[in-house]
C-alpha cells in the first residue's frame, strides 16, 4: 500500500474518532475545539488525496475548507459563547456509554451500506467512504440527543464536514463552483445563527430548547 494511501486511511480513522468524541463531549468549548480539529483533519486528508492524484484543484479546496473550518467558524463560535457567557457550561447528557454503543451500531450499518457503493468508485481512497457515511450518521445522532441550540448547530456543522468527506472519498470532491457555493451557505448560516442566538436569549433567557413553549399542533 503506497504511503499516501496509508496516510489518507489514518486521517479517515482520526476523522471518525473525532466524530465519536463530539458525540460524548459535554463542555461547549471542547466541542468547538473538536470541531476545529475535525475541520483540520478534513483539510489534511484532501491535501493527501490531492498529492496522491496530482490534482491541483484539490489544494484549493483544502485551503478553502481549512480556512473556513479551522479558523473562521471556530472564531465566530468562540466569540459567540464568550458573549453569551456559556463557554464553560456543561450540558446534561444522559447515558454516554449507551450513546456510544448506539453510535457503534450506526457505524456497522454505515459500513454495510457503503461497501457495495464504494466498490463502484474508481478513487484511490474509496475505502474511506464507509467512514464518511458513519460520521454523517453520528452527527445526525448528535443533533437528536443534544438539547441546546448551540450544540445542535455544532452537530449540523459536523454533518456538513462528513458530507464533504464523502464527496472527497468517492469523486475527489465536487467542482470548485459548487464547493464555493456550499462554503458561502455555511458561512452565511453561521452568521444568521449568531444573530438568532441573541434573539432566542432575549426572549427565553436560555438556549435550552426545552424552554420553548409547547404550542398546539
Amino acid at each position: 500500500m503506497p504511503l499516501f494511501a496509508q496516510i489518507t486511511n489514518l486521517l479517515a480513522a482520526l476523522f471518525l474518532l473525532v466524530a465519536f468524541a463530539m458525540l460524548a463531549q459535554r463542555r461547549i468549548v471542547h466541542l468547538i475545539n473538536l470541531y476545529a480539529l475535525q475541520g483540520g483533519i478534513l483539510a489534511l486528508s484532501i491535501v493527501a488525496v490531492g498529492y496522491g492524484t496530482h490534482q491541483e484543484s484539490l489544494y484549493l479546496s483544502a485551503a478553502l475548507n481549512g480556512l473556513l473550518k479551522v479558523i473562521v467558524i471556530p472564531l465566530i463560535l468562540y466569540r459567540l459563547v464568550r458573549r453569551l457567557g456559556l463557554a464553560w457550561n456543561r450540558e446534561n447528557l444522559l447515558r454516554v456509554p449507551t450513546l456510544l454503543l448506539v453510535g457503534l451500531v450506526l457505524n456497522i450499518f454505515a459500513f454495510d451500506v457503503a461497501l457495495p457503493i464504494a466498490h463502484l468508485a474508481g478513487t484511490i481512497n474509496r475505502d474511506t467512504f464507509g467512514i464518511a457515511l458513519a460520521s454523517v450518521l453520528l452527527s445526525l445522532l448528535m443533533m437528536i440527543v443534544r438539547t441546546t441550540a448551540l450544540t445542535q448547530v455544532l452537530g449540523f456543522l459536523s454533518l456538513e464536514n462528513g458530507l464533504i468527506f464523502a464527496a472527497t472519498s468517492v469523486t475527489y470532491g465536487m467542482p470548485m463552483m459548487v464547493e464555493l457555493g456550499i462554503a458561502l451557505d455555511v458561512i452565511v448560516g453561521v452568521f444568521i445563527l449568531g444573530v438568532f442566538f441573541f434573539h432566542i436569549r432575549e426572549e427565553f433567557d436560555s438556549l435550552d430548547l426545552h424552554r420553548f413553549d409547547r404550542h398546539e399542533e
Partner: protein
Amino acid sequence: MIILSILFMPLAGAFVLGLYGHRPWAFAANIGFSAATAVATAVMTARVLAHGPFLALHDQAFVDPFNVFLVDLTAFVTLTTAVFSRAYMHIESHMGRLTAGRLRLYHSMFQLFALTMLVALLTNNIGILWVAMEGATLSTTLLVSLYRTPASLEAAWKYFILCGVGIALALFGTIMLYFSAHALIGGQASLLWTDLDRVRTRLDPTIVGVAFAFLLLGYGTKVGLVPVHNWLPDAHAEGPTPISAVLSGLLLNVALYAVVRFQVLADGSLRDRWPNQLMMAFGLLSVLVAAFSLARQRDIKRLLSYSSIEHMGLATFAFGMGGPIAIFAALLHMTVHSLTKSSLFFSGGHIAQKTGTQRIDQIQGLLGRNPAMGWAFMLGTLAILGTPPFGVFTSEFLILTVAIHKEPWALPFLAVGLGVAFAALFGRMQAMVFGETRVPKAPAPTSLWPSFLHLALVLTLGLAIPPALSRWYTAAARLLGH
C-alpha cells in the same frame, strides 16, 4: 444575457433595499424591482415562444417547457405579493410592530428570496440548485422570526434546523448522483441536468437508488411532505403574511420542481417504478395527514398551511402516477394552487390585521363587516376546495380520473382525504364569513385587488387553459414522462 438580467433585478433590489429599505419609498421600490424582474421574465418567455427552449451561460442555465411557466409564475406572484406587501406592511409598521432595521431586513430578504428561487428554477447545474435551495432557507429564516415573539423564534428555529438537515441529506444525494455520472461523463458536466438526462439509462441503479432516496427526503422536507412537514405550519403561521404567501405559493413549488427533476433521472436508471411508488406513498400520506390535521386547526394561517401540505401531497402523488395526463394535471395543480393559496393568504392576512387576531373562533360575520374581504376569502376557499368552475377543480378531476384507471387502490384514500379537508375548511370558512357581527363596518383595504386578480386567473384556467400554457404542459409532460 436575458437570464442574467432576470437574476440581476432582484440582486440589485436586495442591495438597494438592504441600505434604504426603511425609507418611505422602499415599499414602492420593492414593487418596482419585482416588476422589473417580471418584465425580464416576460422578455425571456417571448423568446421561448418564438425560438423554443435554450441553454445559456455555458450550459449552466437552461429554459425548457418544465421550468418556463414556473419562472413566470414565480415572477408574477412575487410582483403581486410586493403590491400586497406595500399596504400590509405599511399598516404593520404603523402599528409599531417593525423598527427601521427590521423593515430593511424584510425588504432586502424579500428580494433575495425571489433571487434564490429564480436561480433554483433556471440553473441546469444540480449543485447550484442545491446552493440556491439552501439560500432560500437562509434568506427567510430571519423573516419568520421578524416579530421576535417566542412563538415566532421557535418557528424560525424549527424551520432552520429541520430544513437544514433536510437540505444536508439532499446534498448527500447530489454527491451520490454526481458520483454515479462521474465515470460516464466526467468533470463539471456530470452535474448538468441535461447531460445526466442524456445518460440516465446507463447510470448505476444501486447508486441512483440511494441518491434518489436522499434527494426525495431532503427536498421533500422543503415541499412539506409528511412525515418531514413539522416546520411548515409554524413557519407559515408566525412570519409576516407576505412571506407566508410566497413560502406557500412559490417555495413549495420550487422544491417539488427539484424532486421531479431527480425523479426523471431515477426513473431512467432504475426502471422498476420504485421512485414512482415512493412518491405516491409520500403524496398520499401527506394528503391524509394534512386533511385530518386541518380539522383540528384554530389559527387561520395554520389552517391555510395544512391545506398547502395537502395540495402538495396531491401534486406529488400525481407526479408519482406518471403518464402524460397525470403530469399535465400535476403541473396545472402546481399553478392553480400557487395562485389560489397566495390569494387566500392576502385576504386572510388582511382579515387577521383588521380583526386583530388569527384565531378562527374570534372572527365572525366578515361579509357584513367588510364585504370585499369576506368575498375574497369565501371565493378563495371555494376555489382551493376544488369546487367548479375554478382551476383547482380541473386539476383534481384529472388526477382522480387517472387514479381510477391506473391506481384504483389509492382512490378510497384520496376520497377520504379530499372529503375531510372539504368538510374542515368549508365549515371554518362559513363560520368566519357569515353570521352576525356587532362590530361596525370597516373600510376595505386597498390592496385586495391582487387577491381578486389571482382568483380571476384561477377561474380562467378552470374555464379554458391558454393554448401556449397547455402546449408547455404537454411538452413538459412528454419531457418528464419519456
